[in-house]
């Protein structure tokens, strides 16, 4: 097929420059262009960020509203961008907002879309062939997406971020579109407490799951993380059902995707939601007293035992070794 035309969108600048890498890869060898869509109060800055990293064009829908536009307004804006850019492929970062936006956009354009893709490439007919994890991450589906535009969302923090280029060549095109008044009104919006550490950059992660009985017990796992020069993270039950850890330390589909060298899962059963987020770890240790827990199949080293006995013993062994 000749010159691909790829539109990328994410409200997160980190995710956006990853999409730039993926979009560029989809262009070769037939050539093509990657256009970034930027919508919202910080749209122009986002657009410049992309152009500096080699995007061919940025379509900007600058808004003055104080709050970030909601999914419905973003989709309204994106439809205008799609009309202007006429892309054959749209890539969207699968943050939680992005997952909502991509589904609504695809429905509005009356086309299918592929969520949370791990890999994507073109097949001989120019359709998108993607790989996704299904059935709790235990299986991989290969799927083919047809139509125009073909829409896919990609897990953030999975692809290299596009680097700044020597000679940016792209230009900004402003779109004069007034977003509709939101039907869903924001009464309160406040940033959640952020962790001092970024789990996506950690080399060692000790992750806590439902097997941890009390919030105070996290201190034990935190101490182990400290001894290994790593950080403490958690699965969805500990970062959502109860608020024992901030959500930016949640590993999994609705949280962070991590690639540490060492990942120690303590009292984590290993649901789909979680596995997808830690699958990229180099070495995985599972400590769980349930021999049937699915996490064991995802681990290099498995200990079937009570984390309340194993973790203190392992921490002690580490400290003894460090002293020696």
């Amino acid at each position, binding site marked *: 097929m000749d010159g691909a035309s790829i539109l990328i969108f994410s409200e*997160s600048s980190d995710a956006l420059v990853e999409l730039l890498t993926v979009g560029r890869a989809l262009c070769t060898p037939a050539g093509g262009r990657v256009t970034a869509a930027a919508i919202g109060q910080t749209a122009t800055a986002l657009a410049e960020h992309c152009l500096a990293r080699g995007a061919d064009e940025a379509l900007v829908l600058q808004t003055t509203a104080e709050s970030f536009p909601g*999914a*419905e307004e973003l*989709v309204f804006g994106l439809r205008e961008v799609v009309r202007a850019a006429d892309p054959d492929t749209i890539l969207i970062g699968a943050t*939680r*907002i992005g*997952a*909502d936006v991509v*589904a*609504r956009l*695809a*429905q509005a354009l*009356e*086309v*299918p*879309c592929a*969520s949370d893709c791990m890999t994507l490439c073109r097949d001989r007919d120019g359709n998108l062939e993607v790989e996704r994890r*299904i*059935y*709790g991450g235990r*299986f*991989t*589906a*290969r799927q*083919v*997406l*047809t139509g*125009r535009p*073909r829409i896919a969302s990609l897990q953030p923090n999975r692809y290299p971020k596009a680097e700044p280029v020597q000679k940016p060549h792209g230009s900004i095109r402003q779109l004069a579109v007034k977003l509709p008044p939101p*039907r*869903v*009104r924001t*009464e*309160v*919006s*406040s*940033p959640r407490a952020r962790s001092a550490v970024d789990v996506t950059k950690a080399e060692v992660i000790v992750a806590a799951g439902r097997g941890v009985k009390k919030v105070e017990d996290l201190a034990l796992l935190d101490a182990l993380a400290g001894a*290994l020069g790593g950080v403490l993270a958690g699965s969805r039950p500990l970062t*959502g059902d109860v608020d024992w850890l901030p959500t930016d330390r949640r590993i999994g*589909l*609705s949280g962070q995707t991590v690639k540490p060298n060492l990942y120690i899962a303590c009292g984590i059963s290993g*649901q*789909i939601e979680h596995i997808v987020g830690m699958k990229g770890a*180099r070495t*995985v*240790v599972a400590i769980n007293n349930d021999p049937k827990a*699915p996490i064991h*199949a*995802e681990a*290099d*080293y*498995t*200990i079937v035992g009570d984390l309340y*006995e194993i973790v*203190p*013993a*392992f921490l002690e*062994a*580490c400290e003894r*070794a460090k002293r020696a």
Partner: protein
Amino acid sequence: METADASPLNILVCVKFVPDPNQLQADANGRPDLARAPFRISTFDENAIEAALQLSARHGGRVYGASIVTGQMPPRDVLLRALAMGLEALYLIKDETALAADPYRLAAALAAATRAILFAEKIPSWDLLICGEASADQYNAQVGPRLAVALDLPAIPYATRLEVRHGRVVANRAVDGRSETLETNLPALVTVGTEINQARMPTVLQVMGAGRKPIRDIPLAELPGFDAQTLGQRPSLRTIDVSAPPSARKRVTIEGKNAAELAAQLLSRLRADGEVKF
């Protein structure tokens, strides 16, 4: 304090019955052995039913379930389980030709189903549609937001707390580093995950008793307003292969007589691999 208004709510919950991913094994060819996996209500859909029942307990009204059944019919005890939780009736939209196999078609089928059920139950309109935020098998996380667009309803995905006040739904959620309280007018659609509640577990007796409640089958092709032919020709998301990724994991079980021995074994393994530098 604001008082909850008394008008009863008609709520429809979209339910998917899935092979339990945690009990799904690969067959000899590395394909999922769907015939041998027990079925269950998709995890977040249980939370969706629970959320609907809690609102209904507070405001009155009725909670119905709708499910598109593609391929294998879920076992009756799993269907009864959904009814035993407290659904008024369960509508099964039977998709024997697997037309609704991607979220785009699934949402179109559900949109038509919402209207068909209104008509069958002689309800003027839905106040609230509740979906799980994603299904436990495919995890596309598309159907809820798509259904809202198809029905032109305002939507609040990822609700962690729900309240209905004077014709509005108020929801809390935490997304991408922010805590939000959102509100919109009814009718609306919300999606929920595990955070919102602990879904009730019906007893065996309740499940047996639910046999008296109606399960109504509607063939997909007979849904009014559902144009199977046109939809069949639209672009698609087609699965060409499903396989268990070859596990690169060592899957070594550490053996030992006690915690200290296990810990020492683990440490020596991790040192040998270079993952622990001391």
